[in-house]
């Protein structure tokens, strides 16, 4: 009999996420996937899954779940009161309590075998804007994949990368930095931006010194990637996260580097972030 994880209660926003849905941007389908990918990968490694197995992402508010048949789980990402960074055996009928995140935003719960819902367009990630999947709610029964064919669990405890409460994100300028004044570029790298409460998996809506344009002509809509810092006419930047629109009509001044996207994903509403230019040499090809 396959294992089932039952959702008893959800405090914040919880969804199923993996490493995302790639190759469908031309249909307008965003990549989706975990906000903090290194934490998802680690949780999967801890229980012997492939790094890209589907897991549960819980934002801010916590959750309570019950195991039907015994299963191994691991919790990573934003600290939440549960045992972090270690495989835990959840026996049949036992509940797991994940409290509200005490810092950061996204907590990951991986289960040995992976969350085994049907993939859509090549991924199990929930994408609310495209109507793929739904927010997890009390009463949901999540099927867990077979646990027999997986690898041994290699370690008992893994150190977790601390959550940076005032992160500095490295970015590459472009593609539309030439639409902004020199002062705007200086402002972006020297001032502090606060993360507003309307931020979500689509993007961080930031508030701070407005970024001034020198070219105000309408931009023909063009494609965007995760990490794009887009600037609407009011000058307040939006940093796009995995559920971002695939194209947009406001200029993108810079793009945050992959390695720092987890910091953006873990930035809490009300916290502040800063930007710096990425060293040009930290190359494209490793």
């Amino acid at each position: 009999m396959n294992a089932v994880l039952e959702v008893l209660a959800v405090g914040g926003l919880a969804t199923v996420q993996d490493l995302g849905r790639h190759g469908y941007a031309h249909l307008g389908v965003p990549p989706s996937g975990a906000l903090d990918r290194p934490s998802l990968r680690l949780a999967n490694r801890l229980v012997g899954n492939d790094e890209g197995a589907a897991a549960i992402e819980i934002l801010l508010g916590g959750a309570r779940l019950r195991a039907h048949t015994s299963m191994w789980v691991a919790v990573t990402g934003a600290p939440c009161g549960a045992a972090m960074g270690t495989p835990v055996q959840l026996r049949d009928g036992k509940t797991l309590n994940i409290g509200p995140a005490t810092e950061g935003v996204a907590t990951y719960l991986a289960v040995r075998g992976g969350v085994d819902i049907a993939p859509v367009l090549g991924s199990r990630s929930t994408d609310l804007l495209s109507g793929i999947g739904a927010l997890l709610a009390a009463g949901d029964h999540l099927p867990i994949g077979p646990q027999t064919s997986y690898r041994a669990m290699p370690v008992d405890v893994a150190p977790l990368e601390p959550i940076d409460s005032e992160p500095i994100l490295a970015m590459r300028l472009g593609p539309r930095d030439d639409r902004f004044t020199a002062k705007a570029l200086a402002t972006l790298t020297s001032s502090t931006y606060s993360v507003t409460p309307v931020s979500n998996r689509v993007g961080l809506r930031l508030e701070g010194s407005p970024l001034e344009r020198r070219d105000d002509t309408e931009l023909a809509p063009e494609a965007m990637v995760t990490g794009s810092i887009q600037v609407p006419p009011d000058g307040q930047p939006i940093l796009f996260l995995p559920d971002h629109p695939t194209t947009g009509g406001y200029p993108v001044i810079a793009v945050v580097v992959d390695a720092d996207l987890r910091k953006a994903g873990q930035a809490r509403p009300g916290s502040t972030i800063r930007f710096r230019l990425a060293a040009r040499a930290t190359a494209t090809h490793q």
Partner: protein
Amino acid sequence: MNTRPVGEHGLLIELPGIDEVHQLRANLLASHHPGVAEIVAGLRSVLVVVDPARTSVAEFGSFLEDLDVGDVAPPSSRIIDVPVIYDGPDLDEVAKLTDVSADQVVARHQASTYTVAFLGFSAGFAYLLGLDQSLHVPRRTTPRPSVAAGSVAIAGELAAVYPRATPGGWRLLGHTELPVWDLSRDRPALFAPGDTVRFRGVG
């Protein structure tokens, strides 16, 4: 072709117009470059995202310079009629901006025949070319955090139907009940590049 960097793995290729965009996209698809992860058309650009495990932006840039861009087969030409209830919250503002009555905005919006340029922004969202020149108005200064599914909208030279509730900065003229993104269909997206679209007022 002028190119611009997009983060660590992307290259935005600027082009004169939608015909060149369709042509380059078709040529890139036909070339089957193994390191290309995404090819995403815009109105006057194509974004190529490379897989860093297989190639780099610099290597792809050299490949692009040597690419011989040739003719492509013309896109499909289905005709799709979209029934619209013209009750949008921005109808009066568009009328004011264009110096005509709201009824005239509605009449001009229906009078045009549109062509699907490309999909983007959100799943199934088709950018439609062909909007009456007198209705070209800028986007809102601050985008709405949520625009209702089925909203019929315009911005600049473009028209569109919002497939799902998403954030959006376009001007809303009305709404349609016709589903434009439906995962239960074989083709989830109603619109495909090259389709002809007409709007018809109902109710």
